[in-house]
């Protein structure tokens, strides 16, 4: 059957043109296409790898940031605590200082008062002396006869002297 027998002319042309097609495609089509595909796959692979690395880097940075943030928070708290302590100590010191000062003032006042009092008592004593002399004089001016009367009189005068 003719259908099953290869035909020489077509066989010849097919052999020739298919060989040429194979060579041209191999050189000018499959070479660049396969190379480009391999290159693209490699570049995608690399891109994925570097993305993975970048992701790790990111995570590392983030962890670092968190650490810094935590440290900053701790630092802040420390500073605030220190400030509070300082404030407290300043207030405490001030209070102490003030009470010392006050005590000193009081002490001084007390001393001054004491001093005044002593001075006042001295004055009173002088006054009493001068009164006594005055009274004595008066008595002497009255009559120096009645002794009892004199005694009563002196007592009376002394009673009249108020020390305050």
């Amino acid at each position, binding site marked *: 059957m003719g259908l099953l027998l290869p035909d020489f002319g077509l066989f010849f042309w*097919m052999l020739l*043109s*298919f060989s040429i*097609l194979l060579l041209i*495609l191999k050189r000018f089509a499959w070479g660049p296409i*396969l190379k480009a595909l391999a290159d693209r796959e490699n570049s995608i692979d690399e891109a994925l790898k570097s993305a993975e690395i970048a992701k790790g880097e990111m995570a590392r940075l983030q962890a670092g940031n968190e650490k810094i943030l935590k440290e900053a928070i701790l630092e802040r708290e420390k500073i605030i605590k220190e400030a509070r302590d300082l404030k407290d100590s300043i207030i405490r010191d001030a209070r102490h200082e003030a009470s010392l000062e006050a005590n000193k003032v009081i002490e001084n006042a007390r001393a001054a008062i004491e001093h005044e009092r002593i001075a006042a008592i001295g004055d009173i004593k002088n006054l009493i002396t001068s009164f006594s002399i005055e009274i004595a004089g008066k008595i002497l001016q009255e009559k120096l006869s009645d002794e009892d009367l004199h005694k009563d009189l002196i007592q009376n005068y002394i009673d009249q002297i108020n020390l305050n």
Partner: protein
Amino acid sequence: MARVLKPLFLFLFGLMAFSFTLKASDENAGADTITAKKFNTGDLIFDHIKDSYEWHIAELGHTAISIPLPVILYSQQTGIHVFMSGKLHKGTGMYNGFKIAKEGKYERKIVEVMADGSEVKPWDFSITKNVTSLFISIAIILLIFLTVAKRYKENFARAPKGLQSVIEPIVIFIRDDIARPSLGNENYKKYLPYLLTIFFFIFINNLMGLVPFFPGGANLSGNISVTVVLALFTFIITSLSGSRDYWVHLVNAPGIPWWLKLPFPLMPIVEILGVFTKPFVLTIRLFANITAGHIVALAFYSLIFIFAEKSPVAAYGISVISVAFTVFMSILELLIAFIQAYVFTLLSAIYIGMALENHHVKAETL
């Protein structure tokens, strides 16, 4: 990929259905007037399937519209002859002592009529319908792949676009699912260009065979001369890349009882026959599948003309069914176009892979 291919396939289906029906109704109308001319299904089908010296495009009334093709002959008596095939269809059909044999051993072939009336077949290098179709398909393949390659050369990193996005998944499929598993990771690169070339050559020619008008329509990949060349390439590549083990195993296959080899070398004969049956099977499979597809599709719409000889009404009735079946067959053929290209490529890869293999399993099998 599907988004690109879908409109293309729809377009092809549409064209096929349209042109089949067009042709059917044209000839159907003619059937009333030329009842004398008996419709011969076999002739119609063989006219289509076999090669011819002109490219028949359509029939208007009684005039055939066809493209004459160059005839190149080398006769041992009269030397080289080059002329257009149109000259063989005029008048008596004789030109310079050559004619197309109507019957006999050289049916449909150009023969030289000797002085004594005997017919001798000259060396025939004619650019027949199939050769033209071959050149057209090669031009199309070159156009497609050189354009695509240019884009890859410009910048490999760009996303595929247009034709590239149709080609690329197939190229990757052949590389990763055919070449790599069959040939191994070290060897596949060497054979990949060949595998890609046969795949696309067969696939594109199968598709072109499905297009029923001018640039397509030739039964090229269903022609045994073409499939035999393709199988020959696989055979040569397989034989050239055969490892030492491959040849040794042909003669002395391990793991087989000695009495199958020694007094009478049964296994070596089977093994050596296998070397030749493999390419033979490749040849026949592709040829038979594609030719059968064409025959079935043509047979379906020949039904219209067979019924037209009984009555025009029956022909119109049957044309609906014929067209439906032809469209169905065309869809099936699209699938077969891919499957056959895939099978041919896969088997070629497997055969080459088998030849490359180095066996280190002797101890195990014994």
